[in-house]
């Protein structure tokens, strides 16, 4: 069946797109606003600023790929659409990080879960991080606006069997659970959101705000990796980018961008990296610090009936039973969700080799997986990680602290209890040394005694936040509550790097809503 590819159609109609890898000589491009990054922040900002009549250039390091490239195979999606072919890790290799790297950023590959910023997070930012004007009441109109724009609504169909197990477990145990709101329109319920939506149902930036901006005259430059901002006194005067080939290897072509205003929206790793490379003033040594990951634990469960976790909307139920249980800055809480189950994803995020691995993979279709996303950045023993420059790029140091491991042990127990309550025959906490467990009683004892440690326990992340926090106090923030630099009059930051802590919720809608607010204010200022 042929599906129309709106990007191909748009390009044919004359959208301004430059693939920097195909340039034969270095160039300089100018606009009112240059936006670095095309994900949740950059996409929303691009649409709002072009609608306000400003000329906009969107600069993206990754490639422009669209539905005709999305063939539902991990071997194509990971190298095309993810940072480091989905193999990115923290410096000690204890946490694997999934982050998008293509036009649309992580929105091109996320699992569509859309949650408004939790109130305890906003209250904590207001009370402890000098963030102003971002109460839920003040933000709700912006969330409503973006929910309408991206067709975000409660998933109206049966959850797939993987999510159903989460729901059943919660029902059995009387735990809080919620039907997830998803940014989809005409979803086919196939389960391949993480490899780029093959039917353009997911309302990612790739098929919504970026096409709208291009339609209104914006220019998109892809495969242009921004290296640094040129600045003098309190003004940025250029952005320098290097063309990269399809494997992100640098080419000898440089593209320079000049604008009245610059927006960094390169995500919580690359925004700080660009700032560090540019040697921006940072008297309180904030840039790149307090990077948060929602470090995530996995628990497998074998059911007697088919789970087929590869099929159907990947996330449709979550449980917040344990997220805020001990208050914002008490013992770390965790959110319970499920991931989609695909061959490479499951083979690489489990442990062992040879016979034990083969036995696990033979249960591929009976395997239910629950994940616990740990809410980092509030407790005094949870200060996150740090992005640092290396000779060839960056490294993210993220120490997994005692407070994290205490939460991990509780999370493994909650997941096992839930999975048995949902009818699992066996539960397998994904950590070295753990056997298949056959009952909740057995699991409770084994998890209480299990060894938890970096590299022994599988820890993953799909949410990178922080590193360039917002707030009114320059001692703890780089930008103000509107994302405007404390040091440069023509620089803003609009992405997940502005969060002063993790969110305790999947981040896309927080970035959409807050960016909509901040980009609207910027548009007003620039057109005044």
């Amino acid at each position: 069946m042929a599906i129309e590819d709106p990007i191909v159609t748009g390009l044919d109609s004359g959208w301004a797109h430059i693939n920097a890898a195909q340039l034969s000589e270095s160039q300089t491009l100018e606009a009112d606003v240059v936006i670095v990054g095309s994900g949740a922040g950059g996409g929303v900002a691009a649409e709002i600023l072009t609608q306000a009549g400003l000329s906009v250039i969107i600069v993206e390091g990754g490639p422009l790929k669209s539905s005709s490239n999305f063939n539902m195979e991990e071997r194509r999606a990971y190298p095309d659409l993810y940072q480091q072919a989905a193999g990115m890790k923290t410096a000690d290799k204890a946490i694997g990080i999934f982050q998008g790297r293509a036009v649309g950023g992580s929105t091109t590959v996320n699992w569509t879960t859309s949650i408004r910023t939790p109130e305890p997070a906003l209250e904590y930012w207001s009370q402890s991080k000098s963030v102003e004007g971002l109460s839920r009441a003040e933000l709700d109109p912006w969330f409503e606006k973006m929910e309408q724009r991206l067709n975000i609504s409660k998933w109206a169909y049966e959850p797939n069997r993987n999510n159903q197990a989460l729901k059943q477990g919660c029902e059995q145990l009387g735990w809080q659970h919620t039907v997830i709101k998803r940014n989809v329109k005409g979803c086919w319920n196939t389960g391949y959101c993480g490899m780029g939506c093959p039917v353009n149902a997911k309302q990612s930036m790739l098929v919504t705000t970026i096409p709208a901006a291009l339609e209104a005259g914006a220019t998109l430059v892809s495969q242009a990796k921004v290296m640094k901002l040129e600045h003098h006194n309190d003004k940025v005067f250029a952005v320098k980018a290097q063309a990269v080939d399809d494997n992100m290897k640098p080419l000898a072509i440089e593209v320079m961008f000049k604008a009245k205003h610059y927006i960094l929206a390169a995500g919580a790793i690359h925004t700080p990296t660009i700032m560090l490379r540019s040697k921006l003033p940072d008297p309180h040594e904030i840039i790149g610090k307090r990077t948060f990951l929602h470090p995530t634990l996995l628990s497998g469960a074998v059911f007697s009936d088919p789970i087929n976790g590869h099929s159907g909307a990947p996330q449709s139920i979550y449980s917040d039973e344990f997220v805020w249980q001990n208050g914002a800055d008490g013992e770390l809480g965790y959110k319970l969700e499920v991931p989609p189950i695909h061959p490479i994803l499951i083979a690489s995020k489990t442990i062992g080799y040879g016979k034990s691995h083969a036995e696990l993979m033979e249960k591929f279709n009976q395997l239910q997986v629950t994940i616990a996303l740990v809410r980092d950045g509030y407790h005094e023993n949870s200060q996150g990680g740090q992005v640092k420059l290396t000779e060839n790029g960056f490294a993210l140091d993220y120490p997994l602290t005692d407070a994290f491991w205490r939460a991990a042990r509780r999370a493994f127990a909650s997941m096992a209890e839930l999975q048995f309550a949902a009818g699992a025959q066996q539960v397998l906490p994904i950590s070295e040394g753990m056997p298949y467990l056959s009952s909740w009683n057995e699991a409770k004892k084994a998890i209480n005694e299990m060894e938890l440690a970096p590299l022994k326990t599988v820890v993953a992340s799909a949410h990178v936040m922080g590193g360039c926090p917002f707030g009114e106090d320059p001692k703890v923030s780089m930008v103000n509550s509107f994302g405007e630099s404390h040091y440069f009059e023509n620089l803003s930051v609009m992405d997940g790097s502005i969060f002063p802590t993790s969110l305790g919720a999947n981040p896309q809608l927080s970035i959409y809503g807050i960016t909509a607010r901040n980009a609207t204010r910027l548009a007003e200022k620039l057109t005044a």
Partner: protein
Amino acid sequence: MERRTFITTALAGTACIALGVNYCSSDYIAVNKGLDDKHRLLFSVLVPVFLDGALPDVATLKRDAINRTLDAIEHTISILPQDSQAELEQLLGMLEGRLGLLILTGSVTPLMMRNQSELIDMLQSWRTSYLDMMVTAYQGLRELVMASYYSSPEHWSRLHYAKPSFLEDRP
């Protein structure tokens, strides 16, 4: 040919063992790089151990699956970022050199001359090592082999999995 290259390798001084991994990592003394610059020989030894029980039982199918996996590994390595590629090359170089083998496995016997149970013992000792370097070596190789193997739709039959077929225009 490759086996002979392994066997006739010149002995390097043992002094640098004490200096640790980094000093020794750049030497590439055992395998003639011109003959095997993609580490296929090394992985042809490791892949059947990592994937024992997951590979097809029929010999010809098994051989084809291993070859496809070796191709995929080569491709995966080629798209790694510079830092990861350098780290991996360092590890693979060590596993192809006597000195590196001695450091990582406690023996200079080339991997392709070790039997299945010796190779399992080696992986197991890395996996359970108290040295993070050994554990990351094990995990790095494991992830590379697993991701490369399961990248091929031909290898999904034991999973009873296939991608949806409604988009036949996108092979």
